[in-house]
């Protein structure tokens, strides 16, 4: 992605200060750049239209836009999640998936027979059904942001089931995958413009701090680099 040079300067300034770069002027330029070449152009390969709308809305609520920068949807988390669905992870090939499947105490961990891709498919359909029941036939993506937040909180904290999936298990899946998308290497479709890493001050693939082992509390001065050499 091409970032206007004025934004680059602001970014460096932000890293050196205690507030992130986004507080400085010019961030609108970046948001526009993200909008025009980033997240919205992607065509989902796994999720259907309704699921895609749901994921986009949820990513934006879990990782919201604020003074620090754009939301998780704009940073490509939905694209990341969609692409993950067709990996060994998405297919559940990294997990022990032999039966019998029995419910147990939560501290004994995940016990559903569903790999992530099936979990999303079931739970999103059930989640939209739940929202239709409570919001005059609207689906999650059609709700206003405060209502979406309330629904996600209900999933996070409630004891309800979404199909075979406990709502809190679905919420945690969504939360984790959104954050993975925002903070993984842009190779995987998220963290557009390295904005996730810039937010935290994480330098990405630099991975050489020979001269920076102990700077007595000073911030590390260099911005992030991706594995492919992209800089912010």
């Amino acid at each position, binding site marked *: 992605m091409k970032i206007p040079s004025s934004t680059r300067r602001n970014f460096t300034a932000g890293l050196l200060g205690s507030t992130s770069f986004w507080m400085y002027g010019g961030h609108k330029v970046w948001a526009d750049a993200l909008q025009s070449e980033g997240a919205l152009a992607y065509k989902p390969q796994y999720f259907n239209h309704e699921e895609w709308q749901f994921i986009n809305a949820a990513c934006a609520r879990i990782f919201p836009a604020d003074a620090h920068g754009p939301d998780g949807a704009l940073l490509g988390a939905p694209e990341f999640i969609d692409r993950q669905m067709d990996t060994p992870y998405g297919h559940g090939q990294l997990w*022990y998936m032999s039966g019998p499947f029995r419910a147990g105490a939560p*501290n004994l961990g995940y016990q559903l027979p569903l790999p992530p891709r099936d979990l999303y498919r079931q739970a999103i359909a059930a989640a939209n059904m739940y929202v239709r029941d409570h919001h005059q036939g609207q689906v999650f993506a059609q709700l206003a942001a405060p209502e979406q937040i309330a629904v996600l909180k209900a999933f996070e904290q409630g004891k309800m089931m979404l199909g075979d999936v406990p709502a809190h298990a679905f919420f945690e899946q969504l939360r984790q995958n959104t954050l993975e998308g925002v903070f993984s290497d842009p190779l995987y479709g998220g963290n557009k413009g390295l904005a996730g890493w810039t*937010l935290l001050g994480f330098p990405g693939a630099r991975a050489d701090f020979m001269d920076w082992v102990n700077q007595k509390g000073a911030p590390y001065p260099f911005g992030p680099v991706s594995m492919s050499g992209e800089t912010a």
Partner: protein
Amino acid sequence: MCAKKVDAIVIGAGWAGSILAKELTEAGLSVVMLERGDERATAVEGDYPSSIDELRGAIRHRLFQNLSQSTVTIRNTLDQEALPYRRLAAFLPGEGVGGAGLHWSGVHFRVAPDDLALRTNVVARYGKNFIPEGMNLQDYGVTYEELEPFFDKAEKVFGTSGEPYTINGKIAGNGNRFAPDRSDAFPLPAMGEVYSASLFRSAASNVGYHPYALPAANASAQYTNPYGVQMGPCNFCGYCSGYDCYMYSKASPNVNILPALRQDPKFTLITKAHVLKVNLDADKKKATGVSYLDLRTRQQVELDADLVIISAFQFHNVHLMLLSGIGQPYDPKQNTGTVGRNFVYQTITTSRAWLSPKQYTNLFVGAGGAGVAIDDFNSMNFDHGPLGFVGGSPVWVNQAGVKPIAAAIGGPGGKAPTWGEGYKDAMVDTYRHSLTIDAHGSNMAYRDVYLDLDPTYNNAYGQPLLRMTFNWKDNDIRMNQYVVGKIEPIIKAMGATKYSLGMLKDGEVFDTRRYQTTHLGGGAVMGTDPKTSCINRYLQSWDVSNVFVIGASAFPQGMGYNPTGMVAALAYWAAYHIRTTYLKNPGPMVQA
């Protein structure tokens, strides 16, 4: 099926297996090492930049055991039904050449000598009644003086960085004053200290504790080990725990032993070879070899040998013994048998301190083994009399390199939100301006905490999974709470703006969903009494004398220190006695 015969078979290509294979080929034996995972070489897996990819690495567990083929089941109590550990979380076993030794962190301890004879010491100091009902407190049957040469050897092979306290009885440095005497210096000077660790050092010292540099198997400088293999200087890249080191700076079997071993024509490494069981003769007194599944062809292969080394990692060792019928399985109700008895773990809790917005902790800078610790509350270094518990914890800042996905999923800590409004603000503050302090402590053995075969679940090859029956107990919870209480003054002395103390809660149950450590122990413990140990003090099976079982499975209780230094020393100790005694006259080295 092809029948072949070699002198020795080594099961598993991790630290324990590689050490035994090296020693046995040096002794002139033909050795086949069987590893169920893939071939792994640092030149490939550690290739920059693909090696430093957090998603593929620590998040999707690139170098870890793939649970789809085999896992364990877990329950907390005897009356519960155990359920499979379906997703990696609480502990992260390795797979492939190097085992967990390829993706470990590198904190490289010796042992607290008191821990080797913990039962004897506790009874001598506090009396027999001090030991709680149901706790199986035991001695190792070996002393620090006997093991010292092997700790020294392991450090030289690993290229360990550290600062000594005494060498041959004389003060030689500003190292850990609770550490036992050494016969030689560390091969490399201590690692540099990141900002967080240096703050901890001065604060701990101001409070009156005795901080020291963690001994690290991360090379503080260029190094050539006794096998002639080279390590480069660690650059604190921060992709340490969970990754293959692209700098050749973190000790691993792959970097520190296998390059020398692979050149020996008497040595053969077979990968994708999953050992199903050790084969025994009719009266179960001698092993004849092993049966393994060639995962490439799906053929079962029988391989015969005079000597079998089980070094497949702590709980895999116990699993293989149970599947093979070596020794008598432990029964917690009757309190009979030894295989699976004294299964232990470690307690670990993390506290966090936030500094002023002007202080950047740069959490991404770090090395897996580097840091500053105190031992004032470890082992028997303090008076347990008025406290009424057994055990202790080192406390440390061990900034191993915090990457953003793990940090973001873990959340900002304290009472801050884990998503949505306010999350980013709090996350930025935590990531830029906080540091963590761990209490990394012991865990004792109990009569109703053990390993056996699961009655319901199988692995991909039709064998029963190993079942863990494990829970936290009052003794260890109180120990953890006591030691964490000692962290508070350090945090205050650091000038933290706020802090949160992490500790085990009263009655807390073991949670398989949260990463703790991969420092599991026991289940095939060493000792002097065959009624309470599986293997003798040379790590030789009491029941099948040509089988040696090497790993943290030998620990009678979980110690405060990280296990690998002790595992490596025990491996060299066992190998020495195999070479000098056993091979001359094969048979039991200790009469039962």
